[in-house]
């Protein structure tokens, strides 16, 4: 799904926090977003994900505007992940159950993604009892399990230990290649964006300051 952003303007009270005239995010690649704190990265991702729907301008998904259909193919991993007060397994299974995936398939897919992100030993813990890094991994798994065409990630590795970062980066690239999905990832880590991203957008005070290949 190619993303087209046109004349996007988002205000909080009187302050303009996003002001993007024209921006295209390519289909089937990993795009990185970076920029100083408070430059509007999270806000932009929320707008794209349809979470934030009070703004001026247009966001087009493969040429069409946001719809229920697109919603089913899009997902966002929040900067501060929120997990449900149930087991990690149930957390990850949730988007599949929403889509009425048969039980066996759910079991299988959750195990698979659990293997990929090395969180199978957490499966029986409760979502709200995890450590910061653990929750981030589970939130990522919950997003990836639904095999979205558009995967939006807000600093997904900020609280991970270096070993996990390597593992997750590897899984993510493999996964993206395999599914051919579009990934947008916010990161402050330049090394990381170099390793992961095909394209990088840099925001500054709500405007696109840089858009290109690292």
């Amino acid at each position: 799904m190619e993303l087209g952003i046109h004349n996007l303007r988002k205000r909080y009270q009187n302050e303009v926090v996003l002001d993007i005239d024209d921006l295209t995010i390519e289909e089937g690649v990993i795009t990185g977003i970076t920029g100083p704190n408070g430059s509007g990265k999270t806000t932009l991702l929320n707008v794209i994900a349809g979470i934030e729907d009070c703004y001026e301008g247009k966001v087009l998904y493969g040429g069409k505007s946001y719809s229920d259909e697109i919603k089913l193919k899009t997902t966002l991993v929040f900067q501060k992940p929120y997990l449900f007060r149930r087991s990690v397994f149930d957390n990850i299974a949730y988007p599949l159950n929403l889509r009425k995936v048969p039980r066996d398939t759910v079991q299988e897919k959750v195990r698979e993604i659990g293997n990929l992100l090395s969180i199978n030993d957490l499966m029986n813990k409760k979502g709200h009892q995890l450590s910061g890094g653990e929750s981030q991994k589970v939130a990522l798994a919950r997003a990836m399990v639904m095999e979205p065409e558009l995967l939006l990630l807000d600093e997904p590795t900020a609280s991970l230990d270096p070993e996990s970062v390597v593992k997750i980066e590897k899984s993510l690239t493999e996964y993206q290649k395999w599914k051919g999905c579009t990934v947008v990832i916010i990161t402050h880590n330049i090394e990381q964006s170099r390793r992961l991203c095909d394209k990088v957008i840099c925001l500054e005070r709500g405007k696109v300051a840089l858009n290109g290949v690292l």
Partner: protein
Amino acid sequence: MEYIKQGFIEAFQLLLQFDPEVYDVIGLSLFVSTSATVIAAFVFVPLGVYLGIKDFKGKKMISRLIYTSMSIPSVIVGLVVALLLARRGPLGFLGLLYTPKAMIIAQTILVIPLILGLTYSMAKNRGVAIHKVAKSLGGTRWDSVILIIRELRIDILVNLATSFSRAISEVGAVMIVGGNIKGQTRVITTTISMMNSMGEYPMAIALGTILLIISFGIHSIIYSYSQEE
């Protein structure tokens, strides 16, 4: 003071005498208030959550109306229901006035604002974050409603217990639509009220104590359920 002490003693005597009449009254209280709470909950817990997480024009107005409706006096609820169900009223053909069914109807109407208001405020405060996550995972608003109800089930149970408490402890509505008819529509609070107007204070206090014991039991059950989680 004497009356109060005596009331406590009589409460236990009453319970231990196994007087079927007393147990009938207690049973009807439980039946009416439980039915009302359950019926109201089925519709208004989901609705409260739904309104709490939805943004729409006029939401401010709805907020205020919901909270306002929580202060409708039970006598008025009773009166209006009685007027509707009366033989000459629009629903008179049903012949429901002065039956337990009428009491259930009145109490359902009475607890609806409470259930709606408490659920609404809970969803507005704590449901929005959950809704965002569900939305990001492709869920519809109704998926969010179900998810929020499951996530906050303990709080919802506490809210329902509060509403049930309100129902089982109110007297205005059940007195008017039930009529406190012996063996038919007599519940704990109408009996208390009658005992009070008969000057039988210890008996009134005894029944009040029984009501509190029931309520304590219900909260204990909810509490131990919440601990299991």
